[in-house]
């Protein structure tokens, strides 16, 4: 039990944990002490002077954000002296602050506005001309308006401490002070936009959102991000069926307040001019627009006419869609040939951990990374490929003294946070671990995180190594995309059905299918033509996609599908946490992949359930809960927005090792596979051109 101390706040006897900052102790007891610069988790600044309190026997007011609560302390946060102090502080903050609230992006959700409303003076004594400097564009996504800045240092601290980038500083002093970017007149950074989100006023604004709308005109939809495998929750602000911005100010998801550029700005593919919104069929070697009825009939007829089928699933579609797809393949088309592009060897991991109890789980969640005393990271470059993981590690190292050990083929940015780091030759990562054995043996519990470099037999060796460590060792395999894990869990694999159960009949893997003589392909939300040569004209190809990708171009029937922000369902992040995807908006003309599949199924006379377009995603989810091992998760928690870990350790997984098929697409912060090409905000920033993952990672 933590030691409690008694203190008096506004003549009320209260208790708080020893060492708690007064501002937090007051908040815990329902008393608000206002502050701008104080931000939980960041270093203390005491710059804004809003949190001044009156402490007994102190001649001067003290800042509640730097004052630990002590036994017998007597404090007032609500007397005449404090009221005057707050009023004066706000008066000073407003001397040069423009009163452009009616056009300012922050108007309506501005902390300065709220503070003036609550604690400010009714009038101003300031009649002098205000100091004005023009706004600055620091990057296509970050703008700075110095006159609005109240110099709380939050942006500087989040960039230094949270991001470990240090792209912002404070130059000059007094009334001339302003925030400056690291390259003089522009930024060179990760373009995450954390500085914009954390800004209490409208000084830092988003290039994508500024002067577009007012906060109260939008509806807010919190849903998992469409890009990497971390599964951050992004709050989409939607107005007139348009996504106006992405942010996460309510910090309601597993990512807390964190979002990277992809989460914050990478929603724009939804409104890309290159979206296909009308079905097309091939006529005289050309893709011609047609009606849905015609296209579905053509797809059904072509698939029916073929004797052999190959089915390729996606790492972006929902669990429901992937589950239904494998059902469509195995029960409808009666083909065992189904696969997707793999980036982590989940079957090998589940197999190596077979027989472990469900609790305490041998699989770690994203929260476990934050709380683990030690992390061993093998391969991957989380700063670019899993930005939330990198954020969690930095946070844990900073606030909880977590020990980070790194084995990698190249030096990665997280080495700056590492206790120890070793460069390993390709394929020698596991041998290299021996160098950490003594250090790791002293750690309490270790979370072992590995990228696609570790696969097949190496995973068995890794788990054998983890077993020799004294504490409770947990594992995380890192896969590329928003639902890479879900695709495996749902059995979009040639050898495994849903829940890592062996498939009734093993089929061909992705490369074998595409090299073979199959008569027809059904490709949902994947772009295999980017890597493999698919000979058009040889087979009948049905493609469901949002864009005219290389694969879509060789389709015989092309069906426009809805994006991840346009449908319900669930997705599973690389940590195995299942989250509910929420319908944010509708794009005219597109249908969800689930609806398209059900329409084809019906046209082909398959009875696969899920007939009603409005409720089918829920129906399929119920079927997943009933039939997929490990997915019998608490629906109520999921429906209220929580991330619920799937329990996928269900005994031995008799799988066929194909380590050669497992590779990461090595996305940087500014790329996102095929999807990233249609995100103009990602390619707009200058850093996008130069940024590369170090050589050798991810293969």
């Amino acid at each position, binding site marked *: 039990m933590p030691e409690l101390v008694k203190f008096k706040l506004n003549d009320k006897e209260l208790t708080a944990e020893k060492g708690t900052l007064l501002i937090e102790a007051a908040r815990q007891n329902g008393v608000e002490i206002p502050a701008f610069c104080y931000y939980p988790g960041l270093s203390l600044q005491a710059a804004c002077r809003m949190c001044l309190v009156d402490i007994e026997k102190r001649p001067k007011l003290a800042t509640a954000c730097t004052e630990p609560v002590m036994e017998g302390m007597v404090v007032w946060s609500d007397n005449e002296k404090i009221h005057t102090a707050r009023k004066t502080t706000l008066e000073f903050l407003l001397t040069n602050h423009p009163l452009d609230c009616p056009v300012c992006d922050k108007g309506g959700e501005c902390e300065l506005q709220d503070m003036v409303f609550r604690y400010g003076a009714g009038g101003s004594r300031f009649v002098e001309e205000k100091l004005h400097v023009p706004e600055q564009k620091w990057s296509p996504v970050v703008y700075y308006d110095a006159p609005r800045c109240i110099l709380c240092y939050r942006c500087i601290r989040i960039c230094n401490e949270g991001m470990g980038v*240090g*792209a*912002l*500083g*404070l*130059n*000059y*002093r007094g009334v001339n002070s302003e925030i*400056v970017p*690291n390259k003089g007149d522009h930024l060179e950074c990760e373009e995450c936009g954390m500085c914009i989100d954390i800004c209490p006023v409208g000084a830092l604004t988003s290039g994508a959102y500024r002067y577009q709308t007012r906060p109260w005109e939008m509806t807010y939809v919190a849903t998992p991000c469409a890009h990497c495998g971390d599964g951050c929750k992004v709050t989409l602000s939607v107005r007139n069926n348009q996504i106006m911005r992405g942010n996460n100010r309510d910090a309601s998801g597993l990512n807390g307040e964190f979002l990277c550029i992809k989460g914050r700005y990478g929603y724009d593919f939804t409104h890309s001019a290159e979206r296909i919104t009308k079905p097309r069929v091939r006529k005289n070697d050309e893709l011609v627009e047609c009606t849905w009825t015609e296209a579905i009939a053509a797809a059904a007829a072509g698939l029916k006419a073929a004797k052999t089928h190959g089915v390729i699933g996606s790492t972006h579609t929902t669990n429901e869609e992937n589950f239904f797809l494998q059902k469509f393949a195995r029960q409808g088309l009666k083909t065992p040939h189904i696969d997707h592009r793999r980036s982590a060897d989940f079957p090998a991991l589940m197999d190596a951990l077979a027989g472990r109890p469900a609790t305490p789980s041998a699989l770690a969640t994203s929260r476990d990374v934050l709380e683990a005393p030690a992390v061993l990271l093998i391969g991957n470059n989380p700063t670019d490929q899993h930005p939330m993981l990198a954020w969690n590690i930095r946070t844990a190292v900073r606030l909880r003294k977590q020990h980070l050990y790194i084995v990698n083929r190249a030096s990665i940015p997280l080495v700056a946070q590492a206790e120890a780091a070793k460069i390993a030759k390709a394929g020698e990562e596991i041998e290299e671990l021996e160098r950490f054995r003594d250090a790791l043996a002293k750690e309490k519990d270790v979370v072992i995180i590995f990228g696609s470099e570790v696969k097949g037999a190496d995973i068995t060796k890794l788990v054998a190594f983890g077993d020799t460590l004294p504490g409770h060792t947990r594992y995380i395999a890192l896969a590329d995309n928003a639902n890479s894990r879900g695709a495996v869990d749902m059995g979009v694999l040639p050898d495994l059905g849903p829940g890592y159960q062996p498939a009734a009949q093993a089929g061909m893997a992705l490369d074998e299918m595409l090299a073979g003589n199959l008569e027809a392909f059904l490709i949902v939300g994947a772009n295999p033509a980017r890597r493999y040569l698919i000979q058009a004209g040889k087979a009948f190809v049905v493609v469901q996609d949002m864009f005219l990708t290389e694969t879509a171009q060789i389709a015989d029937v092309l069906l426009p599908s809805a994006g991840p922000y346009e449908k319900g369902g669930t997705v599973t992040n690389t940590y195995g946490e299942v989250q509910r995807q929420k319908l944010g908006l509708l794009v005219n003309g597109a249908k969800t992949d689930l609806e398209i599949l059900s329409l084809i199924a019906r046209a082909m006379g398959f009875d696969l359930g899920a007939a009603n377009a409005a409720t089918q995603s829920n129906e399929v989810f119920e079927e997943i809960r009933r039939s997929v091992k490990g997915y019998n998760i608490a629906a109520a928690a999921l429906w209220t927005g929580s991330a619920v870990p799937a329990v996928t350790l269900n005994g031995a997984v008799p799988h066929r090792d194909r380590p050669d098929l497992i590779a990461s697409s090595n996305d940087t912060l500014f790329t996102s596979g095929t999807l990233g090409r249609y995100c103009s905000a990602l390619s707009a920033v200058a850093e996008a051109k130069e940024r590369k993952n170090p050589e050798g990672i991810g293969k």
Partner: protein
Amino acid sequence: MTFSAPLEKRFARMLQSYPQKRSALVPMLMYAQDEVGSLTDEVIAEIADRLGVTVLQVNEVIGYYSMMHKKPLGQYHVQVYTNISCMLRGGFKVWDHARKTLGIGHKQVDADGRFSLEEVECIGSCCWAPAMQVNYDYHHNVTPESFDRVINELKKGGGQ
């Protein structure tokens, strides 16, 4: 880049003198500025590198302190104090006289790079106000006449 041998020796000693390397930042900047003439981008990058801080962090410090300059000053940098004690004792008279005599204004350098002028706040010489400083030399109880004497002396090649 490297500095002169004595300065390098001084820097080497300084880096050992603080529990945190970066504490040496302000003195290093001052010595480097005296030797190089101003804090050029090259000097800033070099010092940032030696102290393990970012260029941005060095720039923050330079922006904060008025005695650090990114552009070269005159051979003699004349600082006239006009904060309250000096003001009450005729500081502005000295300031106006200085501008007229040297023919340059606040933070300006004359054509031959000999003199630069700056209006500054306080050096704590209130008991001998008004005060003025030329490079590192203090001058007290300054009047327009004593100002001229100091400047003429410098023109003849005196001073440090």
